[in-house]
């Protein structure tokens, strides 16, 4: 593999990312499954002295409903317009989404409006009629991973740890997984384009790790909206993730890094389900391959407590990875509540290790 070839492509796809004053909108999936990730994003942005504003009245963009086709496009456009209106009312112009599905939908809608201005007009009318609100389109639209990518060097400077094996001194091997809706429809809207996105690679390189490219890197995790939401369709969803694990396993990755809401949850949970269905585990000796979000990884680099980041709600244990880097953690505190009281413990799976 010639890395210069990728660098040439990366140079072609450098998008503009605003430097401060962000209007932040949350993700349906991530709030449920990675509450610590969104919290961590706001924490390091504050430490970096950046202003990130959240209006409690913002809501879903309806992306999951839209992509499972119960929500019409007109509705999605108007819901997105309402978010823009909240941004406008708060005096912001830089819009940041926590969710990739949202980011893709916002991008698609802005593109639609530029090609079909009458759609924008109609949306404005719908919004006005339904809510009385008006909006200005954002000057800059970014995903939270874009923003984290932008400040990756600042995170290094404040960081305590690097993605290096403390015993061998070798970089940790990371496979990255990009959400499908990050740049597939609009390659120029993603850092690094659609084929070799650089947004996560840039973080891993900066923080000392080594990115492993593997044949099924571009394959979807298998969420497929209705393909997971309905139990009868989940065979598709799990098969897609399995295909990725089978393809990456010979490279012995130390971890999987993701920028999408659903992907880390599926890549985490499906390792458990595959083990319980087929007795197969990936990674060393039943440990699985730890999966994390870029915020969780940034948090580790910055030396935040792993249990503040939310690793206790991952099914695939991250302790082996923490040990490799040399990040201290207190196993006794893993499942305690905020006051240090016990809340019981999850049951141990049959095959996948449990700490």
């Amino acid at each position, binding site marked *: 593999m010639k890395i210069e070839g990728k660098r040439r492509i990366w140079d072609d796809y450098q998008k503009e990312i605003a430097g401060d004053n962000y209007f932040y909108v949350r993700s349906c999936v991530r709030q449920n499954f990675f509450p610590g990730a969104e919290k961590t994003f706001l924490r390091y942005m504050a430490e970096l002295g950046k202003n990130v504003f959240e209006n409690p009245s913002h809501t879903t963009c309806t992306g999951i409903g839209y992509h499972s086709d119960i929500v019409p496009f007109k509705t999605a456009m108007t819901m997105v317009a309402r978010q823009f209106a909240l941004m406008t009312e708060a005096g912001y112009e830089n819009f940041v989404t926590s969710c990739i599905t949202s980011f893709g939908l916002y991008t698609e809608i802005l593109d639609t409006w530029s090609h079909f201005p009458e759609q924008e007009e109609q949306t404005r009318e719908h919004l006005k009629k339904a809510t009385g609100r008006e909006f200005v389109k954002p000057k800059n639209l970014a995903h939270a991973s874009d923003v984290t990518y932008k400040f990756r060097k600042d995170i290094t400077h404040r960081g305590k740890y690097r993605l290096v094996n403390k015993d061998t001194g070798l970089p940790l091997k990371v496979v990255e997984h990009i959400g499908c809706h990050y740049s597939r429809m609009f390659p120029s809207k993603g850092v690094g384009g659609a084929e070799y996105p650089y947004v996560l690679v840039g973080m891993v390189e900066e923080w000392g790790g080594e990115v492993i490219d593997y044949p099924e890197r571009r394959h979807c995790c298998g969420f497929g909206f209705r393909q997971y939401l309905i139990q009868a369709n989940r065979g598709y969803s*799990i098969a897609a993730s399995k295909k990725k694990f089978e393809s990456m396993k010979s490279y012995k990755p130390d971890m999987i890094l993701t920028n999408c809401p659903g992907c880390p949850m599926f890549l985490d949970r499906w390792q458990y389900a*595959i083990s319980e*269905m087929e007795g197969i585990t990936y990674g060393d000796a039943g440990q699985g391959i730890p999966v994390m979000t870029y915020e969780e990884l940034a948090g580790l680099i910055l030396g935040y407590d792993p249990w503040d980041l939310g690793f206790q709600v991952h099914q695939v244990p991250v302790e082996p990875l923490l040990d490799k880097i040399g990040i201290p953690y207190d196993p006794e505190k893993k499942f305690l509540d905020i006051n240090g009281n016990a809340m019981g413990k999850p049951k141990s799976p049959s095959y996948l290790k449990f700490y």
Partner: protein
Amino acid sequence: MIDFGYTISNDRQTDLDRGDMRYFEFVRAIDPSLDICIGCGSCTATCKAGNFTSFNIRRLHTAIRRGDPGSLKSEIKKCMFCGKCQLACPRGVNLRNVILSLNRAIERLG
């Protein structure tokens, strides 16, 4: 093992790295004319069995050439050996002999 209410879907993708080329090699040794097929579909267009069933002779012999004999045994029974495919083939592929050879391959290879 836990029953999750579903199973992991099988992959339909043709994987030429893991293809079962035995049927193709068997037929080829008897009748190499399948090599010159241009995939035009004249055989399927004229096929009597294909007019009354889901039988698709072109798809079947293409799948054999791709090492994918999955539906061979059930599909090949639909052929009525009328030989029209062979008449229609612009490249002169001896399709009747190909089908006969495939039947022999099934006997031999299972």
